[in-house]
Each structure stands twice: as structure tokens, then as C-alpha cells.
């Protein structure tokens, strides 16, 4: 049971980390778009 919880928690951590990389793309898109607007 402990091993299953550990694997599930590990899976979620990796999923969140991978999803977090998209923040880089969004920030860059908004930043560069904003600079052009100025």
C-alpha cells in the first residue's frame, strides 16, 4: 500500500512539474506580446 501511494505521489509530482514547464511558454508569449504592444 505504501509503495502504491509513493508511486501515485511520484506520478502526480512529475505530471505537475511537466505541466509547469508550460508556464515558461505562456509567460514568454505574454511578455513578448506585451513588449510589442508598448
Amino acid at each position, binding site marked *: 500500500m505504501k509503495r502504491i501511494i509513493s508511486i501515485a505521489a511520484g506520478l502526480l509530482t512529475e505530471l505537475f*512539474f511537466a505541466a509547469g*514547464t*508550460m508556464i*515558461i*511558454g505562456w509567460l514568454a*508569449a505574454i511578455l*513578448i506580446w506585451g513588449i510589442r504592444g508598448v
Partner: protein
Amino acid sequence: MMTIEKPINKLYPICYFVGIIVMSLGTLQLLPAIVSAVYSEWRILAVFLLTASITVLTGAGLTGLGFRYRSVKLSFGEGTVVASGAWFLGTLLCALPYELSGNFLSYLDCCFDVMSGLTTTGLCLIQDMDHLSNGINMWRHILTFVGGQGMVVLALTFLTTDQSGAYKMYVGEAKDEKLFPNAVSTARQIWLISLIYLVVGTAVMTIAALSAGLAPDRAFLHGMWIYMSAWSTGGFAPMSQNILYYHSEFVELATIVFFVIGSFNFALHHAVLSGRRGELRRNIETITFTVTLTLLTLITTAGLMKSNVYPNAVALFRKGFYQLISGHTTTGFMTIYAKQFYHEWGDIALFAMVIAMLLGGSASSTAGGFKALRTGIIFTAFKAEVKRMLLPESRVSEQKIHHIKDVALSDSMIRSAFLIVTAYIVTFTVGTLIGMFAGFPFGMSAFECASVTGNVGLSIGVTTAAMPAYLKLTYLIIMWLGRLEFMSVLTLGAYVIRKVERKCDR
């Protein structure tokens, strides 16, 4: 009386292990055969039954040839010859279903697509992709899924418990992380991690495909194939428009998550799934990847903005960032048409894409390219050198990197990183030159060759069935070299030359 034993010809144990790997590839052909049977594709079913038999019989023949010598210990060089030899023979045999399916113009095109699948590159020369049988589509995606984990890893997991030479073959396939003290347990752990993700990923991608409007059974198949391709950082998709076909934000975002995870080192997966979750933010590879991705995203976005291609920030993300992260993780999924790179993106964004494709994902993962570990080591070595110059001569400083555990940066690690990166750059340069010789402009040739060298699969429009045969062969060899990280293939070449020389001397 003293007797002198005749030295054993190492070709026999090499044949034995190559045979085991080839048999596993033959057995694997039964999976698309089952899919063909379910969808009543009787001709394709017959093709797979025939080719599976040929492949298994070839493997059995080789295994039989070397059976007596199976416990002979292989050297590291011979282990790498097994790995690269199995990849060579495996490619020729796995191309048989393609050849008999009638979806290719030549056997070279079949071999190109198999090598592209096994090396998780994702470029393809297949004809009429939008009307392929489910069996052939299944085979394409199985090749890329197995190639990501490695065919030696597959054979070690399912077909042998034999430890002799296992680690040497495992290293020969460009995987050198030991999750457990022995290579067979490590291979099994790699497959366990991959199969856990296969279940989760297929479920998520099926829901994504359903939300994009596909019928349930088609959504399941597409979901599974797209997931297999994302996890292996492969880039194959069932439709010719690749991910653009779905016109779905859900599909695009879900694939980003899975191919980023797929580009992680298996040792990192093992650490995180075993409870060491902090490893994700401390590991040199994730730090390097995050830094290079951030820099290259800024350059790409600025380049695209300058070219004034996309009308808003959302389009910049869905087109610009998607292709960039797809290239950086060496996946090759696309949400634009190939020609758009050349005609719309401009030089700055294309430059960032080429760098991203060459840098690649993590070592001992399904990804290609230089690998973040080597980029991190080279950067740390430069930092250490600058620091050393500023210190008094009597001071000795030790530089450390964190990869699963703290490791002191040694000269041999730095030398090895520089050697492999140099080999990638030389290969990329030669491939680009050959592309230009075939008549393609520098920009197009460099982009396509970076994609081939890094096992990425993004295309700017060079790779088509109409390109010259010598360019197909060049790309095929570069994919093979890039995936096995040069040494195994070069050792195989040297081994064959030495054998031929000895024969000639007699």
C-alpha cells in the same frame, strides 16, 4: 600431455544475444496482428503472421548458432556490437511488414521509417498515411514505443534472466544508469515505469481524443498511439497532419505533459516514484533543461514576433512554444505544416529551433540530442574553470553536480561529455552538407539535419519519398548513430572491418 585450447570465436555468443533480441522483435509483431484481426484486416493479419514467423525463425537460428557459447563473457566492445548489430538486423526485419503492406515506394523507405520509429525520430516516408490500416499504424507506434525504452532493454526484460554480458549490451544501447545493481532488474524497472505511464497516458489521451470529437474506439486507438509516441518522444501520429489534425487545446496540452515526462532520465523517474520527489528540482538535468528551455522560448517568441506571424499570445504559445518544446524534448509533434517553418518563421526562430533540437532531453531517457546531463556538465566545467582562475594557485576547489546523488565532477566526465557533443556536431555538419549537396538551401538542410541528428522528427519539408536515395541513407545512418550515441555503431564498424581483414590475411 599439455593441450592448448583453441580460442573461442566471439562471433558465436554475439549471434546468441542478437538472436534473442531479434526473437523479441518477432514476438512483438503479434500485437499488430491481433489489432488487424479485431478490425478484420485479413491481408495485413496474414502479413504480420508471415513476417513474425520469419523474424522469430531468424532469431532462433542465430540463437541456436551461438547456444553452446551463451555463457561466454563478452567484453564491453562485444556488448556494444550486440546492441548495434541487433539494431541493424532488427531494422531490416521489422521493415518486412511495411514492404508487404504496399504503403511504401521502396524497401529503403521501409527501413528509413523503421529506423525513424526505433530511434524515436518520427520522420516518415510512408504513403497515404491518412488511410493506413490499424494494424500498420499499431506497428509504427509499437516500434517507437519499444525504441524509446530500447530493444536490448526489451529482450533483457522479457526473454532472458542471463546476467552474463547484460550490462555491457545495456550500455551499448546508450543507457548507462543502473537503477538496480544488475542490468536485468534495471531493464524490468524501466518497463514497469513505462507500463504504469502507458495506462495513465492512454486514459488521458483517450479522453482528450473523445473531447476532440473522435468516435470511442477510434479515440482509444488514437489516444494510445499518441501517448506511446509522446512518452517515447517519438513524434509519429496516425494522421498526416500530426497533432494539428485534432485542432484541440486539450490534446496539445496533454501531449506536452507526456513528452516532457518522457524526456526525463529513467533514473530520475525511479527516484521520484520511489519517494525522492525533491530530486526533480535538484537534478542537474531538470535545471539545465529549464534554463535552456526558458532562453530558447524567449528567442523563438521574439523571432516569431519580429516576423509578425501569429496574431496573439495564445497563437504564439500554441504554435511557437509547442514546436519549440516538442523539438527540445526531441519529440517532433507538430501543430503547423512543415513548409510554414521555412516560409513564415524567420531566421531567429529557426535558429532557436535548431539549437533546441541539438540540445535534446535527458540522458538514459527516450530522448535524443546532446542530452541535458552533458550540457550541464560542460557548463559546470566552464564555471569551475573561471572560478579556478580567480582563486590563488595554492587553492584546490572541487566542483560537484547533483544527479540522483552528489557527484564530484571528474576530468573523465568532462572529456566524455565533450567527445559525444563533438561527435554530434561533426555528424550534424556532415549531414547538413550532404543535404545542401542534394539541392536544399542551408537553412532547410541545417534544420532537417538537426532534427535527424537529435532524433527529433520535426520537418521543414526536406524528408519526403522524393528526396534522393543517398540522402535517405545518410539520414538513416545519422538516426542510428545519434540514438546509440556513436560508440556502439563505430565499434560495430571496426569489428566488421577487423573480421574482414583477418579473412583476407588467411
